[in-house]
Every structure is written in C-alpha cells, then in structure tokens.
C-alpha cells in the first residue's frame, strides 16, 4: 500500500464518524458542560444571568430539595426491585422453556412499547381512579369503602414506574439467560445438582450481567422520571424530576435547576461506578 493510500485509509473512519460525532458534541456533550456554568450564575430571566461563581446554589439546592431527592431514589429503587423480581421468572421461563414460541412471547412482553409513554401512564390513571373500572366496581358491589383512594399515593406512583420498567427489565434478563450454555446446566445435573442447586449455583450467577444491565437501565430511567409522579401522584409524591422540570420550564430558575440536574447526574454516575463493586457480578461469581 502506498503512503497516500495508507493515509487515506487511516482518515476514512474519522470522516465516517465526523458528522455523528459533531452532532453529539454540540447537542449532548457541550450542553452538559454548559449547565455547569449556568448553575453558577445569578440573575433572573428578565434582566439576564451573570456568571458569578455562586457555589452556594449547591448547598441551597440540597437543603431545599433533600426530601424530593430521597423520594426519587426510594421510588426508583423500589420500582426497580419489584420489576426485577417480577420479570426474572418470566425471562427465565421464556429463555429456557419458551421453545418455538420464544419470539412471540418476547414480542408480547414488548407490547407496551407500542403505546405512547404518556398514554400508558394515563391508562393507569383511568384504572386507579376513585370512580374508575377497578375501584369504582369494587365500591359499587360494596367490597371497598367510599373513602378508599389509590391515586395521589406513593403506591400509585411506584405502580406506574414499575409498569414502565417491566419490558426494559425483561430484555437484558432474557438476553443473558438465553446466552447461557445449556451444557453448563447439564453438567451440573450430571454431577447430581438438584434443580434448586442448578438454579442458584449455575443459572443465577451466569445471568448476573443481565441483572446488572436491567437494574442500571431501569434505575436510571425511574429515578429521573417525573411523568408518573405528575399524573398518578399528588403534592406529597413530588420527585426530583418534577422539581427540575418546574424550576427550569415554568419558573425559569435556570441556575437552581441546572444544579439539581447536575447533582442527579453525578449521584447516578457514582452509583453506576460503585454498584458493580458492592453487589455486582464479581460478588455473585465468588458466591458459586
């Protein structure tokens, strides 16, 4: 290969990835950096904002919205765990016993994706409403007292978050369970492992990457969500996403909202970094 041709060849991948790379640089990376500086500004939307390196915004944001932060991680965590416990057996059964119906079953699990996100949550509002199909019917036949409410409670918000998480959780679980070499399971059986041992000591540890990916995917989405809390919740179920949205879009308090968003991102990043070290794949494999 001539020098010219080699040079051309080495330049090709950069040319190919340049347009997408530039787009992500300008509309993803730079905005992330911009809000660091926006968070340190002082001002108002009428007179404009000036960068005054006002670091006080961070302790202020923490003291003002600690409850909403805690609640987001609590709701996000509970909904992630429920989704994991509910979907693991489903993903397991499809991967190991789905037979030729595997793809159809998988398609059925992904069905909620075909309904608009807002409408999915809205449907739950209709299901859980005081006069809706469930509570209304139960009240009509006298099984429930008139004073029973589900909407506006933490339970309703967590139900919405969990429902949204189910297909997201199922996919990585299914992929990792499907990839397990059946010879390992057979080998365990040949060595007189009973069904429980085969599951706990072979299948569960080998599916750990799927568990890890599922938890990560769902937890990030749910901790930052604000639609469930907004449609199914009440004044006492506000999550940090709601605060960021209100402060940014309605109150135009850009510095405070930027600080809140940055802290959310940082907490999640630290969590992503620490989590495999504490409960992650390594621990599960040592367990075997």
């Amino acid at each position, binding site marked *: 290969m001539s020098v010219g041709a080699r040079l051309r060849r080495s330049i090709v991948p950069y040319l190919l990835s340049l347009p997408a790379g530039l787009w992500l640089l300008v*509309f*993803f990376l730079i905005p992330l950096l911009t809000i660091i500086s*926006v968070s340190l500004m002082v001002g108002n939307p009428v007179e404009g904002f000036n960068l005054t390196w006002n670091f006080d915004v961070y302790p202020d944001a923490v003291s003002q919205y600690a409850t909403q932060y805690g609640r987001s991680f609590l709701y996000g965590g509970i909904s992630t765990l429920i989704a994991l416990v509910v979907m693991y057996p489903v993903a397991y*059964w499809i991967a190991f016993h789905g037979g030729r119906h595997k793809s159809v*079953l998988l398609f059925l699990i992904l069905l909620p994706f*075909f309904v608009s996100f*807002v409408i999915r949550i809205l449907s739950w509002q209709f299901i859980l409403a005081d006069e809706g199909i469930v509570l209304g019917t139960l009240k009509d036949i006298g099984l429930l007292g008139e004073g029973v409410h589900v909407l506006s409670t933490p339970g309703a918000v967590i139900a919405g978050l969990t429902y949204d998480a189910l297909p997201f959780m199922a996919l990585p679980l299914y992929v990792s369970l499907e990839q397990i070499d059946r010879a390992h399971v*057979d080998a365990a059986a040949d060595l007189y492992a009973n069904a429980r041992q085969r599951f706990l000591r072979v299948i569960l540890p080998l599916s750990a990457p799927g568990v890890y990916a599922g938890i990560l995917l769902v937890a990030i989405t749910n901790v930052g969500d604000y639609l469930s809390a907004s449609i199914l919740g009440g004044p006492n179920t506000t999550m940090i996403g709601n605060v960021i*949205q209100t402060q940014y879009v309605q109150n135009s308090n850009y510095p405070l909202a930027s600080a809140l968003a940055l802290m959310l991102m940082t907490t999640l990043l630290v969590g992503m970094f620490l989590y495999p070290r504490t409960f992650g794949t390594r621990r599960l494999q040592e367990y075997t």
Partner: protein
Amino acid sequence: MEAATVEASPRPRSPARPPRRRWTRFLLPTYVVVVLLYTMVPIAVMILYGFNQSPTDRLTFAWNGFTLDWYRRLFEISDLTDALLHSLEIAALSTVIAVALGTPAALALARYRFRGRGLGDVVVLADIAAPSVVVGASLLGFFVYLGVPRGFGTILLAHVAFNVAFVVIVVQARVSDLDESLVEAARDLGASPLVAFWKVTLPLIFPGILAASLLAFALSIDDFIITSFVAGQTLTFPLWVYGAVKVGIPPQVFVMGTLIFTIGILFAIAAVIANRRSPA
C-alpha cells in the same frame, strides 16, 4: 428449540430426588401468562376507552356505553391534530437525519481500529444511558445560553441527538455480524470501494438500518421528557396529551393512541418478515 433438546436429553437423575409433582409444572407458565396479561391491562383500557360514550367531549373515568363516535370525529380537535402532525414530522425528519449520520459512524466503529474509537463508544453509550431529565435540562440551558428560540427546530435537534446513538448501536451490531470476506471478494473481482459498498455492504446491513429507523421513529414519536424541556410553545402529541390531563382527556387521544399502537405493530411484524427473508 434448544430448550426442547435439553429437556429431552437423557440425564442421570439423583436417586434421592422425588418424582416431580404434577401441578408444580404449571406454576411458572401460569405465572408468565398472568404477568403478560397484567402488562396488557393499560393497553386494553386505552383501546376500550376510545369506544366509551361521554356526555361531554371529555372522557369520564366511568364506563358509559359503547360508541364509534370518536373514530368518526377523530380529527375534530384541530390543536390535537396539529400536535400529532408535529410529532409525525419530527419523527420522520429526525429518523432520516439520525440514520444518515449514524450509519457511517456505525461502520467506522465496527470495521476500523482507530484512535478515539473507545471514546466514541463511550459517548454513544452515555447518550443512551443519561437520564432524560438531565439531557433535557442541559439542552434547554444550552439553548437559553445561546439565545436560541425554542420550538420545532430545537425539538428536531434534540431528537436527532438521542436517535443518533440508538442508530449507531443497532447498525453497529449488524455490521459486526457482517462477513468481511464478502466485501473482499467483491474488491478482488474488481469492484471499487464505492461499488463494493453499494452492492455488497449496504444490502447486507439493510435490515439493521431498517430496524434502527423503526426504533428511532418510535423513540421520537414517544418522547415526552426531553421534548418537554426544549419545545417552547410548539406542542407534540405527548405534550398535548399531558397538557390535557388537568382539564380532561378527549376520547380522540385514546383513539389516536390505539391507531399508533396498531400501525406500530403492523410495521414491527413487517420488519420481522423482511429480516427473515434477507440473506445472512
């Protein structure tokens, strides 16, 4: 099929193990059916309430009887129809742009070793993994900072930004599965790099591009959180529906939801069939 052979293969059972009781065999399948049915409840509610009679033009939580009125009067609310049209336009445009930008990047990341490739992978994954609230907030901060007025254009820019990453991931997976020797064979037979790409690579990765397009379109038409930050006064379908929650939902919303659902499923089935027919 794999599972069936595993089941059928003879294996020595531990002698102490009692024979499996029959009813427990149905426990797990029954559970799977129950979970599947549960996930379909909101879908059923959406379809059902599109047929619910209402004394006013807003839906009530209670069931009042069956009607086809809302299908007949589907486009009667002009704001809602406009919002749906915005959503469709943004979805179509952002899909085309994201595929145009993402496909070459996927080829570069999958087929070349170059300095910066690792960084590229990280940025793409970060774009997918970043919480939507943070992405939306940072884009709004960026647009405010630069004094860019929010509207149709900023929604489109934002949607391309998240769609590009998904296109790269999906197409990259397909390119990695591609047998490089097919392209080399074409080159050996005298095809120029461009002809080899056009006649060999492109047809082979086409199912990946198709899947990426469907995913990008679906993500765009569905996006609520990021759009709610950068939309300004422009309304998309999800934003309009969200705004209507406080004043009452017109039944047309559920009818449109049902139609989007049906069309989406038909497209998905068509894509699966197209994928099966394609070689490799």
